[in-house]
């Protein structure tokens, strides 16, 4: 499903995923400047496949997806995936596609909005994720809203001559910081 518009602080908001923005997501993932901790930088990014994936995302009952907007411009994406509605657990993820905007707190605010929505609107019990251990910015952004380390997956992937570990985190409504 597609998430509703959530307006946050400092010009950051989560906006419903559109096909136009979804096509942007694919383009961002292919750029080396933002791919250090990301995937293989190849895939089927034809318009036809992108439209099919967009339809699947939109119709999915087990994921919720947003584009991250900064000053009303799309700059990344986030969501909760593989939601199990019996366990009320899901895996979260985030990607900032504009490296020129790194360090402005956009991810922190996007994660706060997403996590708040998970507790207050989706009535989830738990969210969890995997983050490259060396991606301190992302790890810190998750920790700020209550994610705590549950494990470390060493030598997860090899890139530019060295092994990268992955940090595994989990969060619950009671670990979310008091907003009042």
């Amino acid at each position, binding site marked *: 499903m597609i998430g509703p518009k959530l307006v946050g602080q400092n010009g950051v908001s989560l906006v419903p995923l559109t096909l136009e923005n979804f096509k942007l997501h694919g383009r961002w993932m292919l750029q080396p400047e933002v791919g250090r901790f990301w995937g*293989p930088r190849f895939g089927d990014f034809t318009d036809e496949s992108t439209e099919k994936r967009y339809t699947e995302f939109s119709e999915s009952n087990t994921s919720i997806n947003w584009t991250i907007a900064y000053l009303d411009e799309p700059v990344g994406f986030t969501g909760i995936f593989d939601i199990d509605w019996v*366990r009320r657990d899901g895996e979260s993820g985030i990607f900032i596609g504009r490296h020129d905007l790194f360090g402005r707190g956009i991810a922190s605010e996007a994660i706060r909005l997403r996590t708040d929505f998970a507790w207050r609107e989706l009535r989830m019990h*738990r969210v969890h994720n995997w983050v490259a251990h060396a991606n301190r910015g992302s790890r810190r952004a998750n920790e700020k809203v209550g994610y705590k380390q*549950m494990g470390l997956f060493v030598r997860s992937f090899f890139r530019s001559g060295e092994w990268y570990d992955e940090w*595994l985190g989990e969060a619950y409504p009671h670990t979310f910081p008091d907003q009042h």
Partner: protein
Amino acid sequence: MALGGTIRGKSTTLRLPVEADLETYNRWMADMRVRRAHSVWHEPAMPATWKERFKEIAKEKQTVLWSIDAAEKLIGFAVGHVWPMGGGFDVNQFVVDPDEWRKGHGSDVALALHRYLFDYLDLRLVTTELRADNTAALKIATKLGYTEFAHGHEVHYREGAYVDEVKLRMDKETWQERWSNEREYSPLAAEATR
């Protein structure tokens, strides 16, 4: 889904799954003993739905399904996912018929499967996830050489309460240390490549 070929253990065999197995899969998914031990692969459904699932999952290229036999009788199935990069494999399902528990089938088939993964596919590591109170499965995994790398709290829900989950991994180095004598094929003869 890719359908797995034959892997022989001492008392068990992983083999190509066929449509005739689906009715038994369905029965296991409806068995509360199985559901207590681990997550279901699919919820119970009518035969036509299982056939549709079988057809659909055949399209997934990175996932492998095996049926497991012992004494020429279907006693379980296994499902795993080959990583698209990085030489890894996730064991997602490892189901043994509850009526066949405590006969050593789980240990035997697990060893055979891991021999295939490390000795034949030459993979770097294998991971799995278990409910923290599934002591039988944990015992098999520990004996094989798995170690815990993460512990999730209150992950699975059943019988009115949450239960934790442990994430485990086994690396090729561990396989070689513990099971280097387990080989599918004997070493090549010295003159074989002359």
